[in-house]
């Protein structure tokens, strides 16, 4: 069940939680990711969905959050990472089609693994709990169907 052990997962999760908590306790903002796509699109699309006041207000700091995510992973890659720079073997069509569904679905659901999964569950939101159960259940079924179909990597 845990071929790589539990420690890297638990320690990584705690570091993620400290990052999210630092942002919340200093600014009151929830460091969640999927809104980033919508707020960033507000720079280029005039449609009302993107021009909502909330999106315009959040679009600056969400770019700082996304940049921080990249820099943090880069620091790990250059320091503690046992493998260094790394490239996925998952096929490009899976990344593209999966990404499209992830972008659409997380915005329709108004949350992703960080929004519903971390901040939502930590806020004891019942809606987020339902969302997490649904997206995790569906993802497990999907990943197993993909595997049964012999699609790998």
């Amino acid at each position, binding site marked *: 069940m845990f071929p790589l052990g539990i420690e890297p997962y638990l320690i990584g999760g705690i570091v993620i939680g400290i*990052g999210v908590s630092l942002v919340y306790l*200093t600014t009151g903002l929830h460091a969640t990711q999927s809104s980033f796509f919508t707020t960033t*699109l507000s720079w280029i699309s005039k*449609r009302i969905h993107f021009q909502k006041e909330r999106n315009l207000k959040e679009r600056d700091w969400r770019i700082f959050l996304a940049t921080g995510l990249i820099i943090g992973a880069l620091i*790990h890659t250059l320091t503690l990472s046992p493998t260094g720079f790394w490239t996925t073997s998952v096929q490009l069509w899976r990344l593209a089609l999966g990404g499209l569904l992830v972008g659409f679905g997380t915005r329709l659901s108004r949350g992703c693994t960080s929004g519903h999964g971390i901040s939502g569950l*930590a*806020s004891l939101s*019942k809606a987020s709990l339902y969302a997490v159960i649904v997206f995790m259940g569906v993802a497990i079924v999907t990943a197993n169907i993909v595997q049964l179909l012999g699609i790998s990597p």
Partner: protein
Amino acid sequence: MNKKNIMVFLGGILFGFGLAYSGMTKQDIVLSFLQLKDLGLIFVLGGAAAVTFIAINIIAKYLKAPILGGDFKPRRRKVSRNLIIGAVIFGIGWGLSGQCPGSAVASLGTGNLPVLLGIAAMFIGAYLWGFLDSRNRSE
């Protein structure tokens, strides 16, 4: 760069470091969780949510207001049809690709360039929902 954005940036660095440390920036590891071969992801999500739970429900109550000003607002969403349908669609995409928004963006910092295609597709997906929602709202 104001203080708020600096704190968001620092928190983002910790977030990204934790994602990389836990292997979540590797789509192949996420898929091995979803195929139930390595259940470690539960500890990533659980560890992150537990620490954040303490911050939101205990430390924030003690502080009363965020250190840089403003108000604490717990994250609230209403159960709705869109929330559930969106979660189903997200789940299919996650299960197909092993990518979620935070881990995909952080993955760029590991030199994983193919994920740029996935992130571009996430923007297109977010745009499609925004397009449909804008049309519904203007009708």
